[in-house]
């Protein structure tokens, strides 16, 4: 009881300052270990490692040697508890540090933790407080080392981490693809001063320069000039000001441009130059703006000089001067463009504020070697870019106070590029970037909102026996709805907004409320039914002529996707003839097949097609999802199905036995497909077997993603477009068929 009273008191005192209940902020504290803290001038970033217990759907095959009775399901579904690792990062204002530490202390059960890694300028200042409150020894880590470690980590693990800022473009944030090799790069950290660090590898970096004119100069000089105390207020003043009344421009000296040097009239010739010669009073806004330009330009110029000297084109900017402030991102971008004539782009990071905390955490976790894993941003538990920016989202600010969160799940497998990508550095999985396409964004956001009721119903129905399914489903609805609303205001919150990210966010939210696989029963039933027809379908295919059979097989692949098949040729995209011609040639060495749905699709569409390939002498690798997503067949389900089909079909059985047919996991739990983040084992198999054909089927994998993906081997992308809006966009009608057969330029030449 005493405990309760204490907790109640804590909560009361927190409620004064924090609008969100703290247990929604410091989540999973019970199992937390390995703490790290980064205390900056105004913000504290806390990091901890924790384990999350959540439900997963498991399938288990029945013992088929026993006699089978009609109506027995093919396999058994069970929901089990699984423990996965998660990293939590929380950012809050320094004023809350004491209440936050109290809260953490109250919820820390794990007593193994003895040390907290600390970095940032404030680590000294709060050392005693932390040691007293948490009873953990504060272990100071070098700031710059932490920063670089954190930067490497986010660049490697978070797709769309880096972005280019373009104030006047349709979408202000243009996210960059994850480059397979993140090194070398330049990090310009603009804290109170500026540090310029060249990073060449995980452990090799060097501070190659710096400048004393940085955020502290803006703040200190700005406060002197405008009598404005706070950094944010200074930036707001600046965003309203006109620098041309304070600065001496080229046109003030020349009367126009200095054209022989290509200097335009609006260029600043002398910052604050007019305040030396004019006796008038200057407005705070104008002086703040002039100061902002002066400092941004200066930093941009130095950055360019260093980038040129070291021949680096990737230049990331971070530090409190940048931290989510559109006005500084804009001026820095402008400056970089000016000084490099567009050769170098200023890049910013979505999780820039967390780099120090992430790095300090990684330093503390070195014995676990966290870099051997791949990690994924959990959209359900992360606030997203600009969540606390009052400029961009007043609604959001009121809701979550000044707390921002990032959660990263440890993925079971290490993810790598598909080795068959033509150019991994330019590969973009998504076909439409909804951050840039406002019409498409509006459509899909509404579409997902409209579909939400159905998803909630499905989720509840999937767990008739589990407690509080309805309540949890309602919580899921609220959370996902809120995410959709956030994305309406800030499409850039989690990187490029795409159909894939909307689907993935939904899966993350479902998982958070313990709906690991709402479709498990539906899938089971469909698989059951389809299996019964497998032999009949194979037999009828055998009766057809070779040419008829090839067409029927392709139809089978497509028809699995849609019930009322009736699309007449030519299809919307129709490369069938080319494909047929190809089949008359020599067999492929090995085909990699990314499968889609359970039931008819996999059993009556994919397997007969695979069977034909096997008969031609082509090895087949079937890649399926590692975790559930919609009604997509998962790897564990597919294993059972394959066993059952093998029992009925000698071709499949022999192929399995001779290792000509292999099942692999994709490493993904998404209805879409990111070919730059695939299970490392898959990549190995693909290389070992000299894969020369990739088949991608279904809307999610072949239309929403990878429609434009360029591979350096032959590929088939096939889908039926089951969405009239999308079909119309592509110039067709609902149920239009896409059958895209592509041959890379190189092998085409070889053939001729």
């Amino acid at each position: 009881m005493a405990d309760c009273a204490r907790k109640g008191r804590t909560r009361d005192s927190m409620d004064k300052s924090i609008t969100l209940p703290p247990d929604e902020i410091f989540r999973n504290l019970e199992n937390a270990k390995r703490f790290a803290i980064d205390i900056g001038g105004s913000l504290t970033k806390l990091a901890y490692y924790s384990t999350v217990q959540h439900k997963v759907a498991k399938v288990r095959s029945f013992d088929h040697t026993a006699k089978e009775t009609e109506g027995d399901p093919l396999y058994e579904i069970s929901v089990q508890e699984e423990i996965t690792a998660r990293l939590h990062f929380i950012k809050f204002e320094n004023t809350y540090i004491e209440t936050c530490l109290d809260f953490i202390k109250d919820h820390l059960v794990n007593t193994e933790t003895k040390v907290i890694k600390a970095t940032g300028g404030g680590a000294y200042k709060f050392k005693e407080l932390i040691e007293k409150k948490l009873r953990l020894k504060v272990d100071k880590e070098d700031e710059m080392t932490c920063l670089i470690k954190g930067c490497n980590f986010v660049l490697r693990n978070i797709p769309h981490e880096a972005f280019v800022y373009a104030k006047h473009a349709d979408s202000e944030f243009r996210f960059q693809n994850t480059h397979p090799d993140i090194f070398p790069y330049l990090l310009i950290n603009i804290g109170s001063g500026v540090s310029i660090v060249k990073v060449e590898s995980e452990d090799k970096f060097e501070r190659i320069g710096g400048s004393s004119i940085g955020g502290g100069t803006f703040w200190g000089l700005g406060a002197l000039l405008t009598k404005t105390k706070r950094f944010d207020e200074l930036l707001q003043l600046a965003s309203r000001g006109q620098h041309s009344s304070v600065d001496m421009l080229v046109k003030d000296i020349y009367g126009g441009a200095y054209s022989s040097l290509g200097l335009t009239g609006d260029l600043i010739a002398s910052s604050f130059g007019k305040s030396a010669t004019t006796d008038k009073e200057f407005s705070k806004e104008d002086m703040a703006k002039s100061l902002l330009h002066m400092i941004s330009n200066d930093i941009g110029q130095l950055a360019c000089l260093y980038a040129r000297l070291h021949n680096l084109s990737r230049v990331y900017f971070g530090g409190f001067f940048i931290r989510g402030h559109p006005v500084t991102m804009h001026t820095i971008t402008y400056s970089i463009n000016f000084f490099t004539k567009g050769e170098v782009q200023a890049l910013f990071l979505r999780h820039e504020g967390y780099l120090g905390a992430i790095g300090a955490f990684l330093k503390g976790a070195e014995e676990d070697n966290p870099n051997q894993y791949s990690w994924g941003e959990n959209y359900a538990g992360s606030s997203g870019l600009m969540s606390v920016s009052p400029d961009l989202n007043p609604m959001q600010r009121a809701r979550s106070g000044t707390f921002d969160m990032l959660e990263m799940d440890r993925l079971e497998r290490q993810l790598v590029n598909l080795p068959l990508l033509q150019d991994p550095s330019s590969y973009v999985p998504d076909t439409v970037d909804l951050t840039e396409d406002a019409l498409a964004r509006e459509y899909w956001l509404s579409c997902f909102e409209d579909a939400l009721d159905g998803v909630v119903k499905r989720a509840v129905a999937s767990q008739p026996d589990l407690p509080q399914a309805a309540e949890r489903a309602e919580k899921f609805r609220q959370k996902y709805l809120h995410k959709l609303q956030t994305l309406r205001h800030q499409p850039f919150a989690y990187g490029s907004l795409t159909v894939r990210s909307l689907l993935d966010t939904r899966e993350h939210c479902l998982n958070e409320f313990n709906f690991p696989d709402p479709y498990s029963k539906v899938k089971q039933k469909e698989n059951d039914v389809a299996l019964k027809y497998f032999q009949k379908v194979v037999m009828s295919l055998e009766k057809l002529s070779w040419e008829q059979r090839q067409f029927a097989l392709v139809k089978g692949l497509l028809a699995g996707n849609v019930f009322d098949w009736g699309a007449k040729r030519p299809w919307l995209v129709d490369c069938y003839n080319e494909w047929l011609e190809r089949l008359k040639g020599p067999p492929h060495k090995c085909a990699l097949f990314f499968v889609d749905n359970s039931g008819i699709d996999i059993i009556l569409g994919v397997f007969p097609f695979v069977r034909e390939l096997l008969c031609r002498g082509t090895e087949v690798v079937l890649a399926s999802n590692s975790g559930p997503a919609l009604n997509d067949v998962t790897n564990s389900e597919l294993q059972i199905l394959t066993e059952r089909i093998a029992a009925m079909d000698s071709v499949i059985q022999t192929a399995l036995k001779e290792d000509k047919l292999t099942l692999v996991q994709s490493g993904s739990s998404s209805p879409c497909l990111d070919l730059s983040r695939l299970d490392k084992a898959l990549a190995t198999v693909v290389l070992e077997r000299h894969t020369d054909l990739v088949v991608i089927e279904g809307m999610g994998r072949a239309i929403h993603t990878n429609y434009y993906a360029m591979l350096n081997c032959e590929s088939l992308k096939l889908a039926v477009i089951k969405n009239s809006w999308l079909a119309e966009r592509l110039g067709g009608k609902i149920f239009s068929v896409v059958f895209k057969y592509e041959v890379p330029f190189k092998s085409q030449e070889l053939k001729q």
Partner: protein
Amino acid sequence: MDKGKCALEPKSAAVHYANGLQNGFCSPQRSSGSSGGSAAAGPSVAGLGCSSPGSSCSCSGSSGGGGHGCFESLHHHVLQEQQHNGSPAKRSRLRRRTESVRKNRPPFPWFGMDIGGTLVKLVYFEPKDTPAEEEQEEVENLKSIRKYLTSNVAYGNTGVRDVHLELKELSICGRRGSLHFIRFPTQAMHSFIQMGRDKNFSSLHTTLCATGGGAYKFEEDFRTMADLQLLKLDELDCLIQGLLYVDSVGFNGHPECYFFENPSDPESCVKWPCCLDNPFPMLLVNIGSGVSILAVYSKDDYKRVTGTSLGGGTFLGLCCLLTGCETFEEALEMAAKGDSTNVDKLVKDIYGGDYERFGLQGSAVASSFGHMMSKEKRDSISKEDLARATLVTITNNIGSIARMCAVNEKIDRVVFVGNFLRINTISTKLLAYAMDFWSKGQLKALFLEHEGYFGAVGAFLELLKSSDDPRDDP
């Protein structure tokens, strides 16, 4: 314009110039090996006191009554003279002009002007070998200009002649005389143009060679207000030509150029004269209101590498806002008394000492004005400290950019010029230190005595070239 052609009269001044070039800019007048550094430094400090434009203007012979416009006194002077002159002036003018053209040299007066963002720099050649009969024929307003300019050291409230910079015994286009260096604020430009109108300057048929942005900005005003046609010249061309010329003729027998020995040690850091024997390539950093950085490979081959808007104008502008001072001299005086470490956050203020991981000394500035983030410190800071911090911030930044450019351009000699360096030993020493320290002795900072006047000298030289320009013929 053919820059390569030397249009100076071949048998006199041209010899100096051409020879100077061939001899690696060792002027024949220069007494070689002279350690005239202190001699040159002396007047530059002496000149400071009486040429302070903001001070209550008492050190000149100008009538200065009321003194709103800086050339007011000259207006009266010239107007009076003009009333005495009628048509005989016209006759003598024509004769003089004919003579000049015959000798392939422009008619007097010889000016070169550089109209910058803050200051107008004017060089004026005073012939001292005028034969008696020519002096008699000389038109009165020409004479009055000469008398006015050469007998005063201050003009109006804000015009100043830098007496200590006067180049004596120059031989130019067959004439011997002195080159005078005069400056006044660009704000006074309209008074200056008005003066030109009032004294009928256009009747002298002289070409006004002007460079700097103001040559463009005020061209129309010169034409409409004073009926004067400017010959506009590129400021960077002029800067380089002027610099090379002054260096080649030397500074009254002493070298024009100097450097600091032991720049990293304030105790033993001394100014030392030197010769720009083989000046190329050099990185030329011109610090006026803003900063231009040029890589100069030969007399006619150079490029503008970059520039920064954080220059002399920024120093003065920020100082005015922060301390309420009004002039460059005032700002520098305050800076000399201040301590920037009360304003700037040093590495040791953050790390308690050196930041060894990155080899940063504790005394290095980590954040300029960084202490001013704290309200308590803002409330107790002195104006002198603020002025010093502003000066140090701007200077270090220029040094840093210049150093990077030097490394990128693979040039190890960095020449700093421009009026920001006038009477500013804090900055010159700091630049010398920064070049030496951050490059580990690889880079050398050089300075020139006529720091801000090279553009004007370059324009002046163009006047002498332009005399055979057909446009100039009557």
